[in-house]
């Protein structure tokens, strides 16, 4: 549905987006991750036809966004960053206006507006002026605007920004539900959101794609992915560490923390794809040594760690904490 090739955007001498290529199909929910200023919003603005790229091409549903923007824009629903709306209009009036610009009229427009109001839980405020709304409602009003015409493609720039935890949950469920029939791309810097919603994630840093894969793929790139963590009580930390280092398949062991008689330790595997074998060996060892083990599990890897690792290694030599 969306095909982006070698997209570049320069602002003066600054390269905000420096060659991005990706594509998106119906049924996919793509999470767009990156530190602030990485080029997420700029990319989305180009995707939706708001700003023209310096170089590269954008094809939306077979239409070139630069050559033929109107049919391309018709396929897209867009929630811009900070969810703008006209402050002199009511929620209903604002949505009606947007629906009219989308080419809906008469009964069809009324229906579309009511459907969007229902989907975004806006009934209580529909006759309120948009500048009197709380941030959550403002956001949902703009989100409602993006789904009025039931578009095939949704581009959402930080759709859950400024929402409370309940609203975040609702917004994510809405996105997941809509993602079954649409192609959705949304940006966020909340990593748990990626796990909760996305079928695929792209991490961009300084205008370039630095990772592209399913959330599980990305997690597996974490340093601790496949490592076995355990909590032992009543054994000296040094003894645990040196014994764990000798377990079959272990590369090295480390003490995560120590509190009184309780020791948290972690064993790193020699290879990533051991499928729990390391956990078995660690368990066997613990039994042999008669350790009092309170907890033992294999780490899946953590997205935030991967994120930090990828987006930091580009800029400097900051070391990860173990």
């Amino acid at each position, binding site marked *: 549905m969306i095909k982006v090739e070698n997209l570049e*955007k320069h*602002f003066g001498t600054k390269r905000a987006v420096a060659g991005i290529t990706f594509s998106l199909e119906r049924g996919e929910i793509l999470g767009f991750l990156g530190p602030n200023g990485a080029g997420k919003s700029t990319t989305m*603005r180009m995707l*939706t*036809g*708001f*700003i*023209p790229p310096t170089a590269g091409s954008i094809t939306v549903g077979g239409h070139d966004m630069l050559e033929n923007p*109107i*049919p391309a*824009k*018709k396929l*897209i629903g*867009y929630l*811009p*960053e*900070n969810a*703008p*709306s*006209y*402050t*002199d*209009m009511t929620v209903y009036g604002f949505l009606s*206006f*947007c629906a*009219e*610009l*989308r*080419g809906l009229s008469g009964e069809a427009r009324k229906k579309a507006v009511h459907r969007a109001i229902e989907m975004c839980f806006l009934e209580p405020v529909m006759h309120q002026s948009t500048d009197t709304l709380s941030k959550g409602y403002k956001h949902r009003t*703009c989100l409602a*605007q993006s789904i009025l015409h039931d578009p095939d493609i949704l581009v959402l720039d930080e759709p859950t920004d400024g929402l409370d935890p309940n609203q975040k949950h609702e917004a994510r469920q809405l996105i997941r539900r809509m993602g079954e029939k649409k192609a959705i791309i949304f940006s966020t810097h909340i990593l748990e959101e990626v796990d909760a919603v996305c079928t695929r994630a792209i991490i961009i840093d300084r205008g370039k794609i630095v990772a592209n894969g399913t959330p599980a793929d990305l997690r597996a790139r974490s340093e601790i992915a496949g490592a076995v963590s355990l909590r032992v009580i009543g054994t000296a930390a040094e003894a645990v560490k040196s014994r764990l280092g000798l377990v079959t398949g272990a590369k090295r062991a480390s003490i995560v923390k120590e509190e009184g008689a309780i020791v948290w330790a972690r064993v790193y595997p020699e290879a990533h794809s051991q499928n729990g074998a390391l956990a078995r060996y660690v368990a066997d060892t613990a039994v042999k040594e008669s350790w009092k083990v309170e907890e033992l599990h294999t780490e899946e890897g953590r997205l935030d760690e991967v994120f930090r690792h990828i987006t930091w290694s580009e800029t400097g030599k900051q070391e990860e904490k173990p």
Partner: protein
Amino acid sequence: MNDGARHIWTITKRELSGYFASPVAYVFIVIWLLLNGVLTFLLGGFFEQGQADLANTFFTWHPWLYLFLVPAAGMRLWAEERRLHTMELLLTMPITAWQAIVGKFLASWLFLIIALALTFPVVITVSALGNADGGAIFTGYVGSAMLSGSYLAITCMTSAMSRNQVISFILAVVICFLLILPGIPPVTDFLLSAFPEKVVRLINSFSVYWHFLGFQRGVLDSRDLIFFASVAVFALFSTSVIIRNLRAG
């Protein structure tokens, strides 16, 4: 109605109802009518001149009244879109930038024309008092509407230049003032003392004030119409260039 016209009309409707949704529109109209009344009947010497004529008492003030009121009415058009970031929303809709520019312009212009139409009691007064020249009054109104349209187009342009409405306002006033200047009597007199008449007439012809004079006298000259229309079209075209540059970054 084709798509383009429908989009323009949608935007015009929204902007126009935006005016009347706030008390600002009513305040604006009241000020406009009050100033017109004061200037016509007190300063203009409407009763003293003893003639059923609106040119020297009523229309003659319009270039000066509009100088402040039109930028005040139009300064928010694009500045507000930029400040609220709704421009991003508007221009990612399946419409062209031109449709948005024309739609917004038309809304403000209609508002100004409504305000102008509300001066009708002046026409009733002058008709009741004497044998008014209906033709001259009509062309005066047409000229006044053309004048406000060209000021407004300039205001659209300055409005797109800044997200600060005050800056838009001041820029518009300055540019409109420069467009009045070459045609007003003191400047013309001064120029005549220095240059041959042909040159002075050429300089005069760059003035909205000068072109408005014909309308006031009851002359509907295509040159005057074309002048106002081309000022407006040029300013709106500049608006589109400014907006394109804004988007290109």
